[in-house]
């Protein structure tokens, strides 16, 4: 699959995936992934359900560790450190590589405490009010909530909750933000706001986003990886990466027939 490895010349690579295989028990969920994520860009993962794109995303901040049967071999290099090396503390990885989930999941705490939580547990010593305001401003939520910071996070609308979750992720000052279908539970207008936000955030952060929505991938991302799933004779569904390139090329001039079929909606 050497032809699928994309070499990036103009930007630095923050996450380099080398020969990654992911297993749940004996079942191979992701096969032989080679993928470089460039700094300060938006990388989108697209593909049909069950192709392992969310699994891969969760490998980047070791969230899969919570699943008992999970096992990964191969390497994920964050700069020059292998995230799966035995001396790596997954807790520290997750602070540097934040996550926004599919369903908005604010804590049952006030808006203020939702933001402050991550900072507190990570030993933040600066001015908390300032951090909360800055994070909420970056998430384009400040003007809507500045008068009700003491209200519960769950009192907000779905779109606002998701931006609160983004603000919460930003507050611990990660380098990378992983987004797992962040707009799939949102209405089109909220989706648009989150997409605008992603555009602004890539100035400071590297973003990896999983999406089912191909228009969204085309709108927000610089690079796109297309994943597919192969059913083996035994009925196992192994995910693999088909093609990874600049988003423009993936959508307008894909090299693989599978990619062409998928992005043109002729997927069978």
């Amino acid at each position, binding site marked *: 699959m050497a032809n699928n490895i994309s070499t990036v010349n103009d930007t630095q690579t923050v996450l380099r995936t080398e020969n990654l295989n992911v297993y749940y028990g004996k079942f191979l969920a992701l096969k032989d992934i080679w993928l470089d994520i460039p700094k300060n860009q938006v990388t989108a993962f697209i593909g049909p359900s069950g192709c392992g794109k969310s699994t891969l995303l969760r490998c980047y901040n070791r969230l899969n560790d919570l699943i008992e049967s999970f096992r990964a071999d191969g390497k994920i290099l964050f700069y020059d450190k292998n995230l799966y090396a035995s001396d790596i503390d997954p807790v520290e990885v*997750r602070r540097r590589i934040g*996550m926004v989930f599919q369903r908005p999941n604010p804590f049952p705490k006030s808006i203020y405490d939702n933001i402050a939580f991550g900072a507190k547990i990570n030993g933040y010593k600066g001015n908390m009010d300032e951090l909360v305001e800055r994070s909420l401003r970056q998430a384009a939520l400040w003007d809507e909530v500045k008068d009700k910071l003491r209200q519960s996070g769950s009192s907000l609308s779905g779109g606002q909750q998701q931006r609160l979750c983004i603000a919460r*992720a930003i507050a611990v000052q990660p380098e990378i933000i992983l987004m797992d279908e962040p707009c799939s539970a949102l209405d089109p207008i909220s989706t648009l706001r989150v997409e605008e936000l992603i555009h602004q955030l890539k100035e400071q952060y590297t973003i990896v986003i999983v999406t089912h929505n191909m228009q969204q991938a085309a709108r927000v991302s610089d690079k796109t990886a297309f994943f597919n799933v192969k059913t083996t004779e035994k009925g196992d569904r192994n995910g693999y990466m088909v093609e990874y390139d600049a988003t423009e090329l993936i959508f307008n001039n894909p090299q693989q027939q599978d990619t062409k079929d998928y992005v043109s909606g002729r997927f069978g």
Partner: protein
Amino acid sequence: MTSSFPERSLTRAAMSQRTLFNTVMTVVAFICGVLALVPLIAVLSYVIIQGFSSLSPSVFFELPPKALQQGGGFGNAILGTLLMVGIAAVISIPFGVLAAIYITEFSSANVARWVRFAANVLSGVPSIIAGVFAYGIVVLTLVKLNLGSYSALGGGFALAILMLPIIVRTTDEALQLVSQDLRQASVGLGATNFQTVSQVVLPAALPTIVTGATLAIARASGETAPLLFTALFSNFWPGSLFEPTASLAVLVYKYAISPFKNWQSLAWAASLILVLMVLITSIIARWATRKEA
């Protein structure tokens, strides 16, 4: 067009078999619902009527009277019940909550299944067995150490055994109800397991855990059998944790079957106080956790 369904008009047919059956069954269900409430209302109203007529301020502050003496009270039994339920709560709540945290958050599925099974078995153990156990473990040990015999400590320990499975199970259920999304959100921010449990999961489950602890306290304060041969009874104010101690439940048992009028009426008053204590505990618990929810 032919249809395989019977011909029916759209107007309501009050006398059709279906409608009649429907009405009859609704009435039957309603009657059963009312019947289920009858015992509760009957017991409560009987206790309240009988208890109030024997209630006076002196019952709270005075010691039990001699058999044919008038007046008197059972202040020592109220204090004894509070004391023993307190001991039981201090033992069982930390143990139970921590055990439940372990099985929901940290243990493997297998261990969790066995602990849950054990808690279920323990909650089915007759309360008198818990009493025998506490007698063997605490009372006999105290005798051996020359520290005493029947005591508040023994009673409290017996009640703790009865409370433990209730607390484990309600806490376990409360923690399982906390959405996995919240745990992931917390872990995803770089929280350790301890931080996630103590600052996200426990606060979210607190109202339910408090309700469970209240239930356990209510159950324990009404238990008589395990106290009969662990705390025994006493006609005096409790002086230490190592001497026989009176409790409301045992007082009700002793005085209700006695032939003396004044003891019988004190038993009614004690029953009322017991019911009110349970009621007040649950109201306070509800009120205290409502703001958190």
